[in-house]
């Protein structure tokens, strides 16, 4: 198996590259990113190479797949590029999140050597409602709220456009909807939320939260790449705990506040301090919870979460 990994310069991308290189049946890994080079990427040129590519341009995507990818015998593609900053919006962000996925998927479908395409999606695409089950399976309704931020709408669109190809494409396609990974640089809303010394929580609500460790995410993605199973798969994490416990474990102060006050308070915080956490994005989750049901991934991919989160880590310098 020779794998192309987009978003290779992110913390998760680097971990996936390391995990793939440690896997026996992986021949070559071609990392792709928007940066010149990612810190921490392996320098071994025999099994790993890196290409700087702008995935928002159709010509670049085509040349990547028919140039370096074909030369290295790439047969499997992992796409995990999603813009991380919640506040950013506009056509370019949409192109990064959605158009890049569309073009990559289209070119992979035509490519003679590629047999497998895996999209790394997230649990945020699911709509959490009080009348829906606590456990979110792959058929759970998704967020189609036109008032949702572009950050979320783009993720749902990228997920759905990939799902729409599952039944018709020549290649086998899988979408892995991962639970939230609590780490810096991975667009984790909870990471930013817990970055504050005082965490405001809706009064009277203490939802159950599920968290995925990077080790489990890497294991699930490698299993997803190696398998031939088509479809969407939830990738839950090992840790399931109430929000208040998570706040306490992170050593933060838990302050319950009446729900209607939270959105303006966090809006003010975003405006003044510049943090990424948006309460409107997390409102449903902070009231109702919602845990990914990993039964399908367990049955089809053999994935079982094994690694607990390692605890609070110091914030990386920006």
């Amino acid at each position: 198996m020779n794998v192309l990994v987009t978003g290779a310069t992110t913390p998760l991308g680097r971990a996936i590259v390391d995990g793939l290189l440690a896997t026996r049946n992986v021949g070559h890994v071609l990392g792709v990113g928007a940066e010149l080079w990612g810190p921490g990427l392996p320098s071994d040129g025999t099994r790993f190479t890196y290409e700087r590519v702008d995935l928002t341009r159709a010509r670049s995507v085509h040349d990547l797949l028919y140039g370096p990818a074909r030369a290295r015998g790439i047969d499997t593609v992992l796409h995990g590029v999603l813009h991380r900053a919640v506040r950013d919006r506009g056509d370019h962000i949409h192109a990064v999140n959605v158009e890049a996925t569309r073009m990559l998927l289209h070119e992979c479908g035509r490519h003679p050597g590629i047999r497998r395409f895996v999209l790394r999606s997230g649990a945020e695409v699911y709509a959490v409602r009080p009348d829906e089950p606590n456990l979110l399976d792959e058929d759970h309704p998704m967020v189609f709220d036109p008032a949702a931020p572009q950050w979320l709408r783009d993720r749902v669109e990228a997920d759905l456009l990939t799902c729409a190809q599952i039944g018709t494409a020549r290649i086998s396609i899988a979408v892995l909807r991962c639970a939230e990974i609590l780490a810096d640089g991975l667009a984790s809303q909870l990471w930013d939320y817990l970055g504050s010394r005082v965490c405001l929580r809706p009064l009277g609500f203490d939802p159950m939260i599920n968290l995925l460790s990077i080790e489990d995410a890497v294991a699930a993605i490698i299993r997803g790449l190696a398998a031939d199973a088509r479809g969407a798969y939830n990738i839950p994490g090992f840790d399931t705990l109430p929000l208040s416990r998570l706040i306490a474990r992170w050593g933060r102060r838990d302050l319950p506040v009446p729900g209607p006050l939270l959105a303006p308070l966090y809006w003010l915080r975003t405006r003044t301090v510049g943090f990424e956490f948006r309460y409107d994005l997390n409102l449903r989750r902070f009231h109702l919870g919602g845990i990914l049901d990993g039964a399908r991934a367990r049955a089809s991919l053999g994935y079982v979460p094994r690694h607990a989160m390692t605890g609070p880590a110091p914030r990386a310098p920006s």
Partner: protein
Amino acid sequence: MSSTLIHRPDVALRDFHDEGHGFDVFGLHLPTLQRTLAVCGRLCDRYFRTQSFGVDDIPREGAAILVANHGGALPLDAALLCFDVDRATGRILRPIADRFIPSLPLISTWFARTGAVVGTQANVGRLLERGELIAIWPEGADGIAKPLRDRYQVKSWRVGHAELALRYRVPIVPVAILGAEESWPVLGRIHPLRRFGVPFVPVPLLPLPLPLRHHIYYGPPITLHDDRAADAADDPVIVAHAATRVRLALCDLLRDARQARAGRLA
């Protein structure tokens, strides 16, 4: 008798599926349940002086569905049933709550910590797959805050419990709870308050329930799945028929229980 969960937690732990932080996936937390059962125990024994009959009909292991009648201004009967099942069998009863419950501040969290689960097919199916004991009130919210003239009359009757019993091939135990209707009569319901999705707000006649004796009667288990395949749960006629069978069994149990209570009072 006192709570098994408090004095012999190892017995009740058989039904608890810890996700690693002391909570199950639905939010059940044993220390919170223990504290709640301690309060329920006092309420059950000293205030309502609850007596139960036919506890041998509650399955000691494996999945089963208790189907009970609702009554009173607030669902105190559910709390009494949870405590009664705990002390009689040592099992954790998972009450199935209405779908507006998760929207209620404080109550939603307390319900989740004490084992209540929102009544969706997927949630309840997961509990039954894990072999847990659940309690369903098929009358739903309509069962509480009934006028006194309608006491112990089963009005609306949902069929989800029958579908689940057929699909997961588990027995149903009818449960008649007497005392709730008389102890806390209601004047009526206020309907327009839909702030949290609550269908109505009951207006009780008294600020607190009267300390009347409660009786809990467990009927013999009903197996709906005998001679039927699991896909019978998809046939609406079979499901409706099965639900009617359970309803009739509960109505018979209620009638017999009221007669027995009248006999004892006489």
